[in-house]
């Protein structure tokens, strides 16, 4: 079957298998930031934004994105020009292995979209569905709070 959707601002119109997991489709389209950690929706490494809301792409099938907007971390910034939120992850030391990072960045992006002055507990709540085994979450929380400050100061895009 064919689906039409928007991926990181670019319209897509392509053939998919009705049962193809969304994570598989996105990776097939080159969005390798979308990671597979468990395939059961428990780890959050496959998080993407669907019309701005964080979802688990391993729990969705490709046809579900028909007519909708999908955002992956590739759309936020680049190696040479990271998004301020990505910069905050670097500056705070929130990246160790980096496997959970794209998903973490996206749930943080969603949080800061609705609340640019979160408490540490609100940050923890927002990222609670995304597992990180490296950091103990300390510096991830720091990074999101730092990014929130930058956003309030207008250092954002």
């Amino acid at each position, binding site marked *: 079957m064919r689906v039409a959707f928007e991926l990181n601002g670019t319209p897509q119109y392509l053939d998919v298998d009705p049962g193809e997991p969304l994570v598989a489709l996105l990776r097939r389209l*080159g969005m390798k930031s979308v990671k597979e950690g468990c*395939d059961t929706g428990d780890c959050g490494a496959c998080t993407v934004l669907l019309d701005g809301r964080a979802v688990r792409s391993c729990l969705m099938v490709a046809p579900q994105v028909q007519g909708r907007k999908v955002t992956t971390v590739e759309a936020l910034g680049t190696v040479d020009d990271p998004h301020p939120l990505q910069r905050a992850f*670097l500056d705070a030391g929130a990246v160790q292995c980096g496997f959970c990072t*794209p998903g973490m960045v996206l749930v943080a992006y969603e949080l800061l979209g609705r609340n640019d002055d979160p408490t540490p507990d609100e940050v923890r709540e927002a990222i609670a569905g995304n597992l990180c*085994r490296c950091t*103990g979450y*300390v510096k991830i929380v720091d990074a999101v709070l730092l990014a929130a400050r930058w956003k309030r100061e207008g250092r954002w895009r």
Partner: protein
Amino acid sequence: MAVETRKRGAVGQNVTKVDGPSLVAGKPVFTLDLDLPGTLIGKILPSPHAHAEIVRIDTSEAEAVPGVRAILHFGNVPRVPYTTAGQGWPEPSPYDTVLFDRKVRFVGDRVAAVAAETEEAAREALGKIRVEYNVLPAVLSPEEALADGAPVVHDEPDAEGIYDARKNIAAAVDIPVGDVERALAEAPVTVEAACEIPYSQHCAIEPHCVLAYFDEVGRLVLRTSTQVPFHVRRIVARVVGLDPARIRVVKPRIGGGFGSKQEILLEPVAALLALRTGRPVRMAYTREEVFVSSRTRHPMRVAVRLGAGNDGVLQAVDMEVLSNTGAYGTHALTVLSNVGSKTLPLYNKARHLRFHGKAVYTNLPVAGAYRGYGATQGFFALEVAMDKLAERLRMDPVELRRRNHIRAGETSPIFEKIGEGREGTAQIVRSCALEECLRVGAERIGWKEKRARRREEGPWAYGVGMSCAMQGSGITGVDMAAATLVMQDDGSFRLLVGATDLGTGSDTILAQIAAEELGVPVDRVLVYSSDTDFTPFDTGAYASSTTYVSGNAVLRAAQEVRWQILEVAGAALGEPPEVLELSGGAVESRRSGRRLTLAEVGHRATYVTEQRQIAATASFACPESPPPFAAFFCEVAVDRETGVVRVERFVAAADCGTAIHPKGAEGQLEGAVLQGIGHALYEEMLFAKSGRCVNASFFDYKVPSALDAPRIEAILVPSEEPTGPWGAKSISEIGINGPLPAISNAIYHAVGVRMVRAPFTPERVAAALRLQGR
């Protein structure tokens, strides 16, 4: 928070992690992010039985599935006994594994493997392999394994290096120092503690995975998520029967390891499937397979007996271990040895010591290397025993540690007596800031006040507890690392290291170590690591070795390159190298003040005069293993009605020498502490009577989330390790050793029950409280 470190150049700075920008941008830098045309999917058929012989295997129906390209099983692969442990040669683990055996030894053991055009075809084929089993009685605990007449897990005649196969003993040690029984009998005060740790899994978020393919000249490339690329090359070559020179192992970015990827698991299977089909093959464990078929921590029971004077000074320590290595003995002897070798030197006042124990086979998942590597299990028992001793003596537990812990300039006989599967190396502790760690940590948590006044609020009782730990920095007489540093024609540098960054930030700190010596910013040093074709040898990322062992190799290479730069510049300036100084990206003469930038030096050496490649390769073998030290303090709240334990705060003060990258070092400590908290409160693989793991998923096996994690406060207490690169020693493992005993001791302070079986679940705590109430 970092306590002030000595001001230096690149060292001690929180520079941007060299691979960080690619990682936050989501670039395709991990093993499976590379798509190759025509890649087949490899999958493994797991054993449904804990212990069985394969009577017959029929693959005809599976072969007929469209898209199936190869099937491997015991009948069509070479039988080469080996160990999956990615250790240096000769591996101290028994050769008790073959790629596919006639016998399966745990639920999840390898029966066969399939390569097919699609995932669906591979799955369908697995379902159509007909296997006839002769099911054997299984042993599902170490006690059963040691019982008379127990089924023998390893009865194959070609296994090598098993301590006593007929008795299911994979490894055993017994190391006496002095006369511990007499000393215990004569000691004015004695206490005992026996602590138990169950099966737990590393849970790196990236599952084990590999891509095997052939390059343009037909050599086999293994792009794999490993901690040990050079061991992968050596061991895969032997197991699949290839000349090692025909194999290249590349480790791209890897999504965490914690020891579980110090293991050669999927690589030889993918290599054989690629060889059989001539096609690229990718394999990845499912999360369930990561739990069941990769590796776990060694479940253990550790019993400690302490004898001390009335002043609290230890006179005798006896430590006895029963370790469950599961179906294969990978790391069985070395993890067992480390239970003693990484714990007993901490309290070096005791003259009489005995360390003894066994690692036994069972028909359960295979234990292997896991961060802490035995020290975690050992410190749980030792530090609970120390808490009991403090209580008996009515002494502050911090004071008891102060009276007993090792100091700089001191040694312990254990360093020499216990090594990694053989004798160790005598060494003196040259740096130790444990006393300061104790002071700073106690102050931060408010030890004195909280210890003196226990707080209660409704059902919640609050308490504080503490523990100490040490680890090592590499394996003496085993580890070796090399580094090649090359100056480019533009005056920048390439640093080639075999060292393996598994997310720890080692590429970054190795660049910092070189940049410091060369007087350049870190971004002038391009790091390329972990490629057996292009980088020099390194034993790999394990045993807390990289900063110290690989770092020293990098420093040596940088020193040589620095001297070569001075020679070239000296010839250009007409001055002897001895009067020249290299800093701030230029060579300057102390005599004349004349300068040459590094870009000019690189340009001259490449194109003008004195033409030569400025480059050096240096190596470092590990003559001693300086221990990092740490003190841990935590505050817990215990719900006396439900048994729920909440860690309110956790303070870890660690001495890792000079922190090359303070935020990176803190991150190691914070992450290790949370894994330790997971061990203490949540994590346990559970098994049915059939030997099947019943909670092999993130839904059923609880890895702490951000909401479960308490405030973890990492404090780096500096010392200067004279043998370390710029004063550094290790930090990656030590943090995981603290939480089990510190939390157990805090629970005791809060409610008066000793939790000695991890994890301290509400059910167990509530049961202990009920017993206490009787």
